[in-house]
């Protein structure tokens, strides 16, 4: 019986590998599992939930911002991802900004220090039209130049996102779309789709006594994940250390939540 089970399990994992490979479009003569390059987010629960053990690098990821008030949270989440990526990979990241998103404020460079991003490793491109941003992202991916490509896009569709996903796959570079959700939504070919909402913070210790805001707390929802399942987590951004961690479950007078340092 046990033998059967192990046989089944290996057969299933083989099948998964083959399907995964076909999906990723890599043509190889041997059907062995080429593990895709991943970015560990540093949060074990999140990493074990994601199908590849982390954020797949050669793919398109979308982060939806439900309301304008959540813009800062989503931007910070993006920056945390970018920060861990730039720590493991060489190169400069390209962030294509949409001038309409400037309504919610411009990205303030000093916060880059807090997130652990070196100013010389990030370049912004400020454009007006979504199509231009999509073009620039695709060009950037095809050139194999940057370490990561981000774009703020309000409107797009399945075809265009599929093109980006293919380009990201070919180049083995991550592409991230930051999307103001209040401007509309679309069908997407992205590998993962996230929604970040800001929630009330839970100060502790001295901050609690003085009635000051605690570390930023967000509700991070993975609402679509290819080859995986959706999930929802509460995450905390440690202001002092500058990294993300899973928030401890709510209980009165709770201590510091367990945090994992980014690899």
């Amino acid at each position, binding site marked *: 019986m046990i033998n059967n089970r192990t046989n089944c399990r290996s057969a299933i994992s083989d099948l998964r590998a083959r399907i995964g490979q076909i999906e990723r479009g890599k043509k190889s003569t041997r059907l062995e599992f080429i593990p895709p390059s991943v970015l560990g987010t540093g949060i074990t629960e999140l990493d074990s939930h994601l199908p590849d053990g982390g954020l797949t690098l050669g793919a398109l990821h979308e982060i939806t911002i439900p309301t304008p008030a959540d813009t800062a949270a989503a931007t910070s989440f993006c920056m945390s991802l970018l920060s861990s990526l730039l720590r493991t990979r060489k*190169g400069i990241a390209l962030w294509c900004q949409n001038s309409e998103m400037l309504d919610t*404020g411009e990205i303030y460079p*000093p916060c880059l220090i807090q997130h652990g991003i070196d100013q010389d490793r990030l370049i912004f491109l400020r454009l007006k039209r979504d199509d231009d941003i999509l073009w620039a992202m695709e060009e950037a991916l095809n050139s194999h130049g*940057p370490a990561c490509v981000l774009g703020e896009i309000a409107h797009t569709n399945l075809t265009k996102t599929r093109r980006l996903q293919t380009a990201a796959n070919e180049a083995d570079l991550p592409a991230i779309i930051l999307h103001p959700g209040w401007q509309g939504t679309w069908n997407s070919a992205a590998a993962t789709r996230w929604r970040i909402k800001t929630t009330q913070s839970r100060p502790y210790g001295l901050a609690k006594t003085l009635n000051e*805001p605690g570390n930023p707390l967000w509700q991070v929802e993975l609402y679509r994940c290819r080859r995986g399942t959706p999930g929802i987590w509460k995450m905390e951004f440690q202001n002092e250390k500058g990294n993300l961690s899973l928030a401890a479950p709510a209980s009165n007078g709770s201590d510091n939540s367990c945090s994992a340092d980014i690899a």
Partner: protein
Amino acid sequence: MKLADARAIFPKLTVEPTQIQKDKAMLEKIRIWCSRYSPWTSSSEIQDEQEKEKKDPNLILEGPGGGGIWIDATGCSHLFGGEEIMLTDLVNKINQIGFVSKAAIAETRGAAWALARYGQNNQKNWTIAPLGTARETLAPLPTAALRLSYTTRLNLQKVGLHTIGDLLKLPRATLSARYGTTLLKRLDAAIGKVSESISAVKYKEPLYVRISFSEPIGNSEDFRAALEKMLILLCQKMESQGVGARRLIFTLYRVDGSIEQRLASATHPIRDVITLKYLFNDRINDIDPGFGVDATTLFAERTEALGDTQAKLSDDRKSNNFELLIDRLTNRFGNEKILSPRITESHIPERAGTLSSITEKHRNADIKHKNIIRPVRLLYPPEEVETIGLVSKLLVEPPSVFRWRKVLHKITLSQGPERISPEWWRLGNTGTRDYFQVEDSRGRRLWIFKETNQGSKTTRWYVHGLFP
């Protein structure tokens, strides 16, 4: 004579400081202009450089502000109708440019130099030494006309040898024994016993390619093919000159005589055909062919030295790729759209961090204040909010409720105040600001401040940034 003495003698003396580099540049330009008479030109600056290389600084003969051009006009004078006409033309034209000049033609370089500077020019400002008359024409000239060093000239004067004729009368062995071989060399060169050539500057081919078509072309595919052909030729030329292109102009000539132009520029010199073609890629789609294009040209307007390209390591390729991408994006969207974060030392938040164009060179401030928490997004300019309810005037406290962008925010938690005073050394100051990090009942975290103007006692509240 010292300047003070000269001024004493003539108080209205005009004095100009020497600008050696500019003089050199001007001389070079004149030299290039002189190539209309002969392709073989050189300038005294260049000769002086060569003499310097031979480690004989005494032979530098032109003072600052002066200068001469050598032209090897062998076989060229008939094109102008004769030596006389050629020289008249030369001198007149240079006069028109604004310089006073003297010219001479002789059978040797040394003789020409001597006659131009020391010859009896009469009114014409030029001399021609007929063939075979070198000795006679040179004899009356002073010894300085032989391009000798100062010490040699002094020595000659002391002994009473003032003209070249005097030197010619003396036995050669004596001359070399007393004054060295240089004097003899110069003398021989001047009378033609020894040949002395002008080493001309190599003619720099302009980086320009042109293709014409037997039938007018009209679609972008053809334009691209023409561009590629021209790029191949241009890159070969650039390789022979050891340069790379930084700015290219692609011109199309239509059958009706009108012109269409496209520009591409790069931040570093490029000599690779594929890369340069890539830069032009999107520009070609919107070219209007009109009734057809029958010729195209490609001109490298700006180039920079580029050595032989080495085999690239994978690292270099990645950074090259990124630079290329930035070039491509710059060409399509413009320089100002590509921004880089800048952090400066300033207490005023909107000055401390900005996004500015990538072309501005700067030095990022050393960031020591790592622990100050700053918002992720900043509003430019800060937006005023309407406070609702009482705000204590004595205590520095944020309002408990305020309206921002038509939305009501109820503050539950707040941290502060952080006082940021205006920078008194700058003009156009802000008032004193007291900043608070606040969180409202919905979990939105904002950076707000209270601004007190010194003049009016009013206080106003603004939202400056958003925290995650």
